[in-house]
């Protein structure tokens, strides 16, 4: 239990630091690499929560596919690779205030409601087979809807991005 808490502390510190680095760095490629660190930290958190299939999917889909997509987007929009002086708009104080207010209210509400409730770690550990059983029985309609959504997104992206 202690080892898990130490692991969580290290992972959480890295994740939050990388997230802050992502929204404050002036170099857009560095921001993409910071996002990789955040996504990796979250995958480690899923392992701590005994959701190893979600962790694997996170690594495959996000760090593998989505990050390549982002780097292609950076490349195709000819973003300057070095430091960009104007990365944040003039509205950043309002944005910081909104984010602080939202974060503060959420943190207060969570501490007020859940306090020091300990995580029920003696519950069932859901194996990948349980997840797939649920997806293909109880959630079969949403699963099919997601298939159609991915097809629609694929066609939409091709139609939007192609040159006439």
């Amino acid at each position, binding site marked *: 239990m202690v080892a898990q808490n130490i692991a969580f502390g290290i992972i959480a510190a890295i994740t939050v630091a990388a997230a802050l680095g992502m929204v404050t760095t002036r170099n857009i490629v560095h921001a993409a690499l910071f996002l990789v660190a955040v996504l990796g930290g*979250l995958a480690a958190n899923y392992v701590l929560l*005994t959701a190893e299939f979600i962790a694997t999917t996170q690594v495959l889909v996000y760090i593998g596919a989505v990050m390549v997509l982002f780097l292609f987007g950076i490349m195709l929009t000819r973003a300057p690779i070095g430091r960009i002086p*104007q990365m944040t708009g003039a509205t950043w104080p309002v944005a910081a205030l909104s984010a602080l207010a939202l974060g503060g209210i959420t943190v207060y509400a969570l501490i007020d409601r859940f306090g020091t409730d300990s995580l029920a770690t003696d519950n069932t550990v859901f194996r990948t087979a349980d997840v797939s059983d649920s997806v293909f029985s109880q959630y079969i309609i949403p699963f099919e809807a997601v298939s159609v959504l991915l097809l629609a997104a694929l066609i939409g992206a091709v139609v939007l991005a192609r040159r006439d």
Partner: protein
Amino acid sequence: MLLNQFLLLGALLFAVGVYGVLARRNGVMVLMSIELMLNAVNLNLVAFGLQHDVVSGQVFALFIIAVAAAEVGVGLAIVLLLYRNRKSIAVDEFDLMKG
């Protein structure tokens, strides 16, 4: 481990993502911040799924990963189209709706 440590981490990441969406000028950076917010929600879903002993939390996290992948594909296509038409992806320069 406490339930709250995961929920608080999710809340912090979500707030950082909100700041990124509101403050960043680059369209690709805005999309990255949206990904950060979606991931923060995923962490909450998995934590609550474990707490309440249901597998639905993990299933919904999987659905959100799929929807986020679709969203980033279409979003980047739109950003690319904006760049091709206006030679800029600074989101605060698109004020065509202003009277």
